[in-house]
């Protein structure tokens, strides 16, 4: 219960910041995708079920406010959380390599899917431009941002888990 409330708050605060303050650190039209980092972090810290659920919720939130269809980003988020959750079992939490690489990798894959569905189908064929100017820069930027965002979520998760343990002892 505590976890659900905290997670919802994290997602909403992220949406608010991502659509306002984060626009200021835009470099040549590219911004880090903090929503994706949150999904990856939850999947690594809490496993496949939590990853898929958080991914679905975060994607749905984006779909409601900015999406051009309902369900597209929810699907992307859910799959990201589900597949990144596979690494949960053998994941050493203080290790930053996995959150950074998975966030960047997920960003590249989702970037390709968006390009293929939204741009390639509308006769924008120069894949090279999109890869060099959008997909790779964004993945790198997201990877760097993951260093910070994962740390924050790691701290939040630690506190939530401590609270959950307390409750378990009470009952």
């Amino acid at each position: 219960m505590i976890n659900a409330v905290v997670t919802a708050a994290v997602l909403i605060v992220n949406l608010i910041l991502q659509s306002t303050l984060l626009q200021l650190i835009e470099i040549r039209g590219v911004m880090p995708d903090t929503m994706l980092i949150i999904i990856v972090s939850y999947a690594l810290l809490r496993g496949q079920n939590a990853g898929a659920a958080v991914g679905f919720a975060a994607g749905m939130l984006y779909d409601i406010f900015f999406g051009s269809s309902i369900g597209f980003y929810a699907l992307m988020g859910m799959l990201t959380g589900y597949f990144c959750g596979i690494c949960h079992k053998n994941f050493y939490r203080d290790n930053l390599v996995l959150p950074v690489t998975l966030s960047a990798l997920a960003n590249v894959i989702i970037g390709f899917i968006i390009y293929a569905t939204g741009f390639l189908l509308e006769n924008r064929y120069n894949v090279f431009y999109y890869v060099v100017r959008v997909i790779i820069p964004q993945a790198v930027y997201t990877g760097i941002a993951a260093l910070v965002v994962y740390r924050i979520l790691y701290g939040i998760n630690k506190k939530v888990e401590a609270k959950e343990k307390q409750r378990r002892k009470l009952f």
Partner: protein
Amino acid sequence: MKFFNEYKRQFMILAVIALVIISIFTAGKTIKIAGVDDALGFIITPFQGAVTSVTNWVGDSVNGIIERKNLEEENKELKKQIEELTSENERLSLYEAENKRLSELLDVAQKYQDYDTVGSRVIAKDTGVWYDSFLIDKGSMDGIKNNMPVINAGGLVGRVVKTSAAYSNVYSILDTRSSVSVKSARTGDAGVVTGDYELMEQGLCRMEYIDSDAEIVEGDEIITSGLSEYYPEGISVGYVKEIHQDENGLTKYAVIQPKVDFKHIDTVLVVQEVQDKPSGAEVN
């Protein structure tokens, strides 16, 4: 929970199929999830508005300190401009009155009408990197409806695509999902202005399907033609920056410098009028 864990894979496959179907069916439509949309809007948009106000204020103050020296000069310049514009405005309003009288005599409807507009603040921008859409702080409670054109002092900004109770989503004309039918104000050559990802970052857009015989030249003003479903005639879009021949040899395309500065856009006007023209498909 145990049941869920046991059938995790099957559950995921079902969810994926369901989401794929839903997203294909809702693509390009403005679908609201009843209640959820409005409720989330009430929770989130005030915060977005507040954060945007604070960042704008900080940005303005910092700029103010840096540019204090230039301000006096700019002030003088602007005062001079106001005088010039006031005299021009007086002259033009005389023309308008004359135009009205003459068109009444000729029984012709006014071509460029005045529209009622509602001022609105831009509170948040799309968090993704692929599109150029933003949220404004007025929604259906303030009389905003889907497909209302959005303008700025300079010219056309875009179109409202989704209204919720407390906010609306606007696609700018730089967004690749937007298209506006336009014409050259000087020659009347028609075309369609669409967003182009490669130009979007520079704040430019593209005018397509210009006839190769068209006499359009660099510097021509581009205005909405009134042929499209959503935009009334005569709203200024921008100026022609470059003209290129298409590969097929039959058409040309132009790079358009919009009048609106999309990098620094914090207030917009929503035109309170939905064009009730039938779309091309319905005419056939």
